[in-house]
């Protein structure tokens, strides 16, 4: 299955609103084993100048990864997810995610390429508040194993 470079630039509609919440942040911080009180105690976060508890730096993946399933489920692209590996991840933050944030995720296919029999799919997912404020963008590079090889068969 070849990846069609014609999909570069495709932007999917924003997701439904994701309400962050203090308990979700606490659960995520527990799961990554990080005891930092700034993820749990609003008073500690406020002492550092934040309006509420903030989310750990990699928390956005819990929103951006499910949002990116629109790519996997896009019948026109025809991606075989069992062949997809997570190659690289980058976050660029305008500010941290706060517990009281209400966010939507917009997924964009930024690049598609093939090299040495593998396909590469670069995506960007923008997390924006319901008021239109940009919070963070997640950039994922996905490797599609054997994409080019499939194209030849």
């Amino acid at each position, binding site marked *: 299955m070849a990846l069609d470079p014609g999909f570069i630039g495709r932007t999917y509609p924003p997701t439904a609103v994701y309400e962050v919440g203090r308990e979700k942040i606490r*659960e995520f911080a527990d*799961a990554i084993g990080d005891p930092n009180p700034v993820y749990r105690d609003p008073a500690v976060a406020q002492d550092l100048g934040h309006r509420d508890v903030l989310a750990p*730096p990699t928390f956005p993946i*819990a929103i951006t990864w499910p949002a990116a399933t629109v790519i996997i489920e896009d019948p026109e692209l025809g991606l075989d997810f069992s062949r997809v590996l*997570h*190659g690289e*991840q980058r*976050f660029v*933050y305008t500010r941290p995610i706060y517990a009281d944030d209400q966010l939507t995720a917009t997924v964009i296919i930024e690049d598609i390429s093939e090299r040495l029999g593998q396909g590469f799919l670069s995506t960007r997912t923008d997390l924006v508040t319901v008021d239109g404020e940009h919070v963070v963008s997640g950039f994922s590079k996905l490797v599609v194993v054997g994409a080019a090889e499939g194209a030849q068969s």
Partner: protein
Amino acid sequence: MIKFADVAKGDVLPEQTFPIRRVDLVKYAGASGDFNPIHWNERFAQSVGLPDVIAHGMFTMAEAVRVVTDWCGDPGMVVEYQVRFTKPVVVPDGVDEESGARLTVTGKVSQVNEDGTVRVDLVATSGGEKVLGLARALVRLP
């Protein structure tokens, strides 16, 4: 709290070692919503050619940045963070508390920028092998 004026290129951040046990992967799957069976089902992992269950790359990425956030004192100062997943972290099963893998992370200030940010380069190893490439964070210090 670290101040921008106190940081110089070449500064070394305190090294940390973190556990990666099966229970950690189960918790991370639940919290992140990533239930790919390669992260919890040994038979499935082996059926796709892996030696054993492997950690979520994003779990390793989450642990690695603690060297930065514990050092700077405020995770909200991180303005960029990126990694490349170069080698999977294999997480063996076992009956005692210590079973599993360990991740050791070191960090070094590689750039001090005029805009008040500093770049920290991270090296993450497990079982003596590098598991992340191009792991770096940009931090805005007061």
